[in-house]
């Protein structure tokens, strides 16, 4: 899967009209795990560019002793690594100054999330790449999805492994192209068993830990989603800067930033509404806030305190935010929170039957629609009381 190009590809000899070299084009090969073939594909495309007559060099390559990868690199010019010594340890790192001096048209740089040894120009390799791009050199690079900063916690939850080498999401967002290298978990495990990824002694431990099928399936889903979101956001950005109606473009980015507000009260039944709201938030790819508008007055009774603690716990594991506001004007308090939080959806349970004068008042959903034009209000049905749903 590849994102559409925003601009026509520029040669590194192009200028931006000021006599300076324009920023290079940046292409990232994204994968779900080691061994899917990111580096191989990067080299393959690099060779294609070289055959087409472009000046291509390998800035940094991590072949991991994989025969197929090494063969793909054969014949391409390599900028030698530099040796860096820190506290009696010598490591080999990418030679950024040498690449800038060499100034090729295209530079292939593996593993953009890598952390450099101390004492080099930058702490992280993606920062080195920024310098290369700024010099007008096109860059092909590789990375695994678990290194993305925003996915770090999710990956830790999935695999139990906390990835230390991360890179900001903005790096991927700024790439001109993101190419997803996809492989089914079964095929990747087969490659692993055939010794194409790690040496023999590392295969069994890897299969028993990170390379379990459920981990890989989940990471694959994350990678596919990331690539899809990249395609979507670039399409929207393209429309915004292009020929489509400005108002449509202005609305488009908002459409991907849904924020749901579920109105709750601390009693056991409220959890059902929270669960439904969370599922809706997941489907919309949005954030979820929970709001209890507490009437001003005496201490909260013990039962409510317990239910509130349970709601707080639920909110925390779901990644939602529980807000408690004290007010005797329910619609005004909800509207104020919705404006402050940028809410796009309000979810509420069906109201208790009104009594006395309350019957002549405008119902809460209508009041909210008056106060918050443009915000959807959804009343969540109590499915437990739906007839004919009983299962044996």
């Amino acid at each position, binding site marked *: 899967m590849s994102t559409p190009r925003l601009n026509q590809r520029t040669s590194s000899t192009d200028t931006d009209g000021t006599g300076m070299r324009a920023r290079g084009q940046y292409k990232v090969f994204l994968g779900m795990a080691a061994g899917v073939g990111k580096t191989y594909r990067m080299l393959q495309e690099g060779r294609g560019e070289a055959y087409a007559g472009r000046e291509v060099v390998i800035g940094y390559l991590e072949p991991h002793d994989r025969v197929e990868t090494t063969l793909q690199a054969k014949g391409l010019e390599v900028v030698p690594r530099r040796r860096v010594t820190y506290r009696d340890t010598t490591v080999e790192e990418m030679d950024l100054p040498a690449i800038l001096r060499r100034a090729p048209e295209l530079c292939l740089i593996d593993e953009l999330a890598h952390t450099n040894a101390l004492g080099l120009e930058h702490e992280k390799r993606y920062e080195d790449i920024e310098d290369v791009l700024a010099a007008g050199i096109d860059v092909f690079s590789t990375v695994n999805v678990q290194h993305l900063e925003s996915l770090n916690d999710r990956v830790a*939850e999935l695999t139990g492994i906390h990835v230390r080498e991360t890179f900001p999401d903005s790096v991927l967002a700024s790439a001109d192209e993101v190419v997803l290298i996809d492989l089914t978990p079964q095929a990747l495990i087969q490659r692993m068993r055939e010794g194409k990824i790690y040496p023999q002694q590392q295969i069994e431990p890897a299969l028993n830990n990170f390379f379990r099928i459920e981990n890989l399936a989940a990471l694959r889903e994350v990678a596919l989603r990331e690539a899809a979101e990249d395609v979507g956001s670039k399409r929207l950005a393209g429309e915004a800067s292009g020929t489509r109606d400005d108002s449509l473009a202005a609305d488009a980015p908002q459409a991907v930033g849904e924020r749901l507000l579920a109105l709750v009260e601390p009693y056991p039944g409220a959890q059902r509404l929270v669960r439904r709201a969370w599922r809706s938030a997941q489907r919309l790819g949005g954030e979820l806030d929970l709001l209890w508008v507490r009437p001003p007055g005496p201490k909260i009774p013990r039962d409510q305190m317990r239910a509130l603690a349970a709601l707080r716990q639920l909110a*925390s594991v779901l990644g939602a935010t529980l807000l408690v506001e004290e007010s005797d004007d329910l619609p005004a308090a909800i509207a104020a929170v919705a404006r402050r939080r940028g809410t796009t959806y309000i979810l509420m349970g069906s109201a208790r*039957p009104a009594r006395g004068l309350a019957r002549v008042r405008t119902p809460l959903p209508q009041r909210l629609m008056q106060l918050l034009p443009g915000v959807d209000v959804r009343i969540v049905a109590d499915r437990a009381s739906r007839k004919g749903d009983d299962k044996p």
Partner: protein
Amino acid sequence: MSTAAVVALVVAGICVGLAAGYWLPPHGLRPSRNRPRPVRRILLPFTGQEISRRAFEAAVRLAKAENAVIMPAFLAVVPKSRPLDAAVPLQCAKGMPLLEAIEQRAESQGVEIDARVAPGRSYRDAVRQLLEEEQFDRIIISTTDNPRAGLSSDDLRWLLERVPAEVMILRPAPDDTRRISAAGVSGHF
């Protein structure tokens, strides 16, 4: 009948109507107050995407007999590298639909539900934290033949030794194939 008497009757009628309107909910029926609020609490912890129907039915039977509320608790394991209050959406994606299915089924049988989500570093830790925060009269746990699923035998021993509540452990039975799973959720969830 004099005009004054007619006016008085009309005013009285309006007053009676307003009073009835104020006190009675729409449909003319007060909610029944005959049913006492449950006082006993039965904990039904679970870890995966399904629970044994036997365990659930045992909880429902006891809840009805003892006028108790069932507290299904989804145990979530938070990796040590993350704070205990961190979100665990992937585990929730499995646990929440099951919680919904349990709640729907129990309510259809007239049993009150008060669900919990208990995060911990392990299943045992999640149960321990839950027991520190709340009191329960009974705990119902169904075991499985799968050593990798749910609470281990060590966890069960720990529960029996440490928990100040009646613990009912349902052993796996060969014919116990009936499960309650997320697929049992009624309607769109």
